[in-house]
């Protein structure tokens, strides 16, 4: 393997392990641990009258039963509200175990610890909880109505109300030649990683230290949260994300009740305790997203140029707001996509309901925003009788207007300023890829054969790489191998490969000599986490910085050894040499491994490398200290990257669908993606991210919904009834890309994790509307939904 790995579609370094069953996911570790299971509320809204454990206590293998009363100190306090915001005037969080009241089905009430999970569940079944029922608030309409309350001290169920504006949108719309209004709706879905959450905790009483493995997207933050909750010094707490079986947002939330409770019990019992979430628990006890109602008012001119846009969003935040109001903030800012909206006003209400908490799911509010904007663009085009691509083109921010300041505040609390992007070029590519201009001929052909087809498109801009920072550490070992670490976590993105590519390129070593550790507080303590498509931007640049420092140091030391000016040296395939000289030329080169030996003057020899590094090993300049002033031993360094603001990736999707005139079955015939996420570190992995995102977008558009009944029961809390797409539901995905480097960071990368999912509902609604001849305003849409819509129109 050569050092030219950056930008190459190399195979992943993590795969051999994962492919042979040698992965270490949460439930693969801690075989000797006690098992935890939870009694969860079967009711959406109730007061807890009593908890009776009489029948449970004599089950063989039971170790302990805990309820809220047992939680001492800060463990018994409400869980933290992670991202406070001035507009979040009525934030509420749950207790780790419910105290007095439950607010959604699935809320944990009691924790059972037993010798194995089967026994723990036996015990749970024998614990009797008596409830006083309260009327549940289910659905956004009921919440908005405000007659029934989720939290009795939150009037109107309004957790947050926020308005952002630029210019006077109301006046601009009044004055516009044309005005349209749209009512739109998106239902709930969820991240649904194939591996649920899970926690394993081990308390070492002799060392007074706690080690926690958790299936998280933010191990350093879990560590800080646990230290605070369990009242331990942070340096006595280690948190490690093992292999994580997908996250997609749900695992960014922390600490989950179980993340507090499992370590708390492990300390209390002095035993290892483990909990692995089962699928039903994940549906009712983790988090959902997406559910919104939207009202759009838009004013525009005869050419379809927007003059004013006024959007109101009612956002269902579920029972609690542990992650603040990030999702509706993103919806109302990222809604703008690649367009100049004229004057803009966005208002949202974040509302409580007696359902599972809402926290970010891949896309994090962007799919809903994209849906609102793209439905609006289609409506404007339809009204004026213009081609949908023409209306979009006319409203695009032009490349020469970059950087473009929207005059709003983004999710990171910083100005919403797009860094770069060429939207007209992206649209051109998409039109060519899908054959936009040739579609009418295809439609006619299909119609002649009795078939109904439609084409749609949707555009998005995605703020990626949000701060505040990430760090990286790089070390060259004395055998020439390189180890690196960053604090953020990995859930399948292939970070160990892309970060190795970054480090290898900077250091001039073969990529397979680089081993990267992520999400382990023992290896790197400062980090924020993996979300908002930020890992490649943040940790990529941080590791590049660290590697560059190591490189500089290596060249300095090698320069002394070779009696050469460091500026005349380069590192090729792990060997430092005079620029251009063939390596192996006598006196002209030195392996990086040897430089690592020289970088660490030793007193003791314990192996061959150490022997060469002892102070007594070779010729020494006695006029200098063994470690030069300002230097530290070893060939290693740390670097950080903190961006002034987010980068903005963009993309456009087009789909061709067929709708069955009789059965209303919806089939995707073509699905095309053009995306621009800046410089690509590994095109193969970026494409994989796009594929996965598109599959989730298709799922959210056509199949996935959370079906709550009026009592707040989730009726489809299994893979039997929640229709996650199989291979037969995901179309063949055609992709093309642009690379507009971000001017904001040295690598020029933007991040790609969420891109694929964002326009899913928007593009399919566009295509189905085109096939049917009327506007689709609610997603997801099933064949029976479409069938009912047709009937309703016929009977009008």
């Amino acid at each position, binding site marked *: 393997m050569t050092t030219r790995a950056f930008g190459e579609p190399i195979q992943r370094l993590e795969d051999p392990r994962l492919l042979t069953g040698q992965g270490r996911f949460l439930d*693969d570790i801690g075989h000797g641990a006690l098992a935890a299971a939870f009694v969860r509320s079967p009711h959406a809204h109730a007061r807890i009258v009593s908890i009776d454990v009489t029948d449970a206590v004599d089950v*063989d293998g039971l170790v302990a039963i805990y309820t809220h009363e047992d939680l001492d100190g800060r463990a018994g306090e409400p869980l933290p509200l992670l991202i406070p915001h001035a507009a979040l005037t009525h934030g509420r969080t749950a207790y780790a175990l419910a105290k007095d009241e439950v607010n959604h089905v699935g809320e944990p009430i009691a924790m059972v610890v037993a010798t194995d999970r089967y026994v723990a569940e036996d015990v749970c079944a024998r614990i009797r909880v008596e409830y006083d029922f309260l009327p549940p608030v289910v659905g956004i309409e009921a919440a908005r109505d405000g007659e029934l309350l989720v939290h009795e001290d939150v009037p109107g169920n309004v957790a947050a109300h926020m308005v952002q504006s630029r210019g006077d949108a109301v006046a601009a719309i009044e004055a516009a030649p044309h005005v349209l209004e749209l009512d739109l709706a998106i239902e709930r879905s969820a991240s649904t990683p194939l591996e649920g959450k899970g926690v394993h905790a081990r308390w070492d009483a002799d060392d007074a230290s706690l080690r926690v493995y958790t299936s998280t997207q933010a191990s350093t933050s879990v560590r800080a949260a646990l230290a605070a909750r369990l009242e331990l010094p942070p340096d006595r707490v280690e948190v490690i994300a093992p*292999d994580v079986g997908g996250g997609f947002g749900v695992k960014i939330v922390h600490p989950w009740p179980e993340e507090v409770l499992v370590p708390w019990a492990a300390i209390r019992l002095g035993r290892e305790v483990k909990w692995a979430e089962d699928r039903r628990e994940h549906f009712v006890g983790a988090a959902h997203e997406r559910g919104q109602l939207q009202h759009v008012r838009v004013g525009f001119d005869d050419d379809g140029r927007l003059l004013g846009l006024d959007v109101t969003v009612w956002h269902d935040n579920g029972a609690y707001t542990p992650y603040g109001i990030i999702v509706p903030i993103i919806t109302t800012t990222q809604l703008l996509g690649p367009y100049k909206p004229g004057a803009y006003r966005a208002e949202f209400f974040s509302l409580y309901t007696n359902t599972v908490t809402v926290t970010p799911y891949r896309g994090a509010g962007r799919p809903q925003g994209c849906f609102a904007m793209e439905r609006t663009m289609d409506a404007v085009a339809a009204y004026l009788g213009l081609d949908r691509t023409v209306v979009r083109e006319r409203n695009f921010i032009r490349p020469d207007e970059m950087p473009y300041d929207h005059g709003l505040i983004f999710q990171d609390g910083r100005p919403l300023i797009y860094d770069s992007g060429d939207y007209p070029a992206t649209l051109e590519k998409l039109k060519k890829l899908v054959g936009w201009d040739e579609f009418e001929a295809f439609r006619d052909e299909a119609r002649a054969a009795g078939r109904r087809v439609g084409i749609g498109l949707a555009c998005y801009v995605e703020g990626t790489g949000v701060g505040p920072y990430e760090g990286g550490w790089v070390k060259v070992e004395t055998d020439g191998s390189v180890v690196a670490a960053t604090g953020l976590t990995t859930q399948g993105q292939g970070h160990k490969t892309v970060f190795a590519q970054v480090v290898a390129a900077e250091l001039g070593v073969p990529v397979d000599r680089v081993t990267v550790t992520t999400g382990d507080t023992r290896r790197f303590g400062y980090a924020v986490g993996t979300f908002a498509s930020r890992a490649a931007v943040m940790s990529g640049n941080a590791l590049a910085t660290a590697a560059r420092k190591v490189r500089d140091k290596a060249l300095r030391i090698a320069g002394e050894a070779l009696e050469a000016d460091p500026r005349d040296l380069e590192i090729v395939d792990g060997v430092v040499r005079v620029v251009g000289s063939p390596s192996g030329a006598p006196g002209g080169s030195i392996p990086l491994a040897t430089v690592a030996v020289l970088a660490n003057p030793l007193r003791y020899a314990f192996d061959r490398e150490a022997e060469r590094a002892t102070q007594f090993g070779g010729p020494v300049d006695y006029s200098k200290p063994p470690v030069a002033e300002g230097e530290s031993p070893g060939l290693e360094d740390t670097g950080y990257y903190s961006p002034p603001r987010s980068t903005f990736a963009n993309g456009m999707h087009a789909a061709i669908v067929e709708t069955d005139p009789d059965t209303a079955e919806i089939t995707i015939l073509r699905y095309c993606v053009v995306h621009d996420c800046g410089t690509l570190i590994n095109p193969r992995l970026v494409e*994989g991210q796009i594929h996965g995102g598109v599959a989730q977008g298709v799922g959210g558009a056509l199949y996935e919904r959370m079906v709550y009944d009026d009592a707040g029961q989730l009726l489809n809390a299994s*893979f039997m009834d929640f229709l*996650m797409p*199989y*291979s037969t539901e995901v179309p063949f*995905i055609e992709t093309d890309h642009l690379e507009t480097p971000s001017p904001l960071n040295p690598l020029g990368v933007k991040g790609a994790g969420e891109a694929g999912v964002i326009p899913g509902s928007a593009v399919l609604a566009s295509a189905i509307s085109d096939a049917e001849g009327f506007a689709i305003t609610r997603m997801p849409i099933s064949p029976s939904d479409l069938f009912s819509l047709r009937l309703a129109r016929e009977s009008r």
Partner: protein
Amino acid sequence: MSAAEELYEVSLVVNGVPRSATVPARRLLSDFLRHDLELTGTHVGCEHGVCGACTVLVDGRPIRSCLQFAVTVDGAEVTTVEGCTRPDGELGHVQQAFRECHGLQCGFCTPGFVTTITAYLEENPAPTADQAREAIAGNLCRCTGYQNIVASVLRAAELRAERA
């Protein structure tokens, strides 16, 4: 219910090695493999027979180990993802194909795909792209969008033929 559960000895040949453990009748095969034999390559994504992550081969046939009690397969030959390597421990044809085609991201669903595809190719050694898509239509993956898994099936068929 303080009486201890009745235990049964279950003996299997797993990946060519005779293994046994004493377990209650209700022990799922998935838990038996993962927790009693500590072969954690087999994953559990739903425990209700829908995701396919727990698929193992019992006497060559793919089954969902979360739907089967360990006692019911006493005496059987079981192949798990750990046993889908070549005899020398190198990646088997399906595993190699996944690596080449980027057929996995988080890798949690992957063991179930590897076992399923291994069995499928024995039945249908040269599938078309459409057949490849059908072959994996009983397994869920939340990460990859399946594009590269379909490619992996086709590549695995090639590798299998080359290595035969």
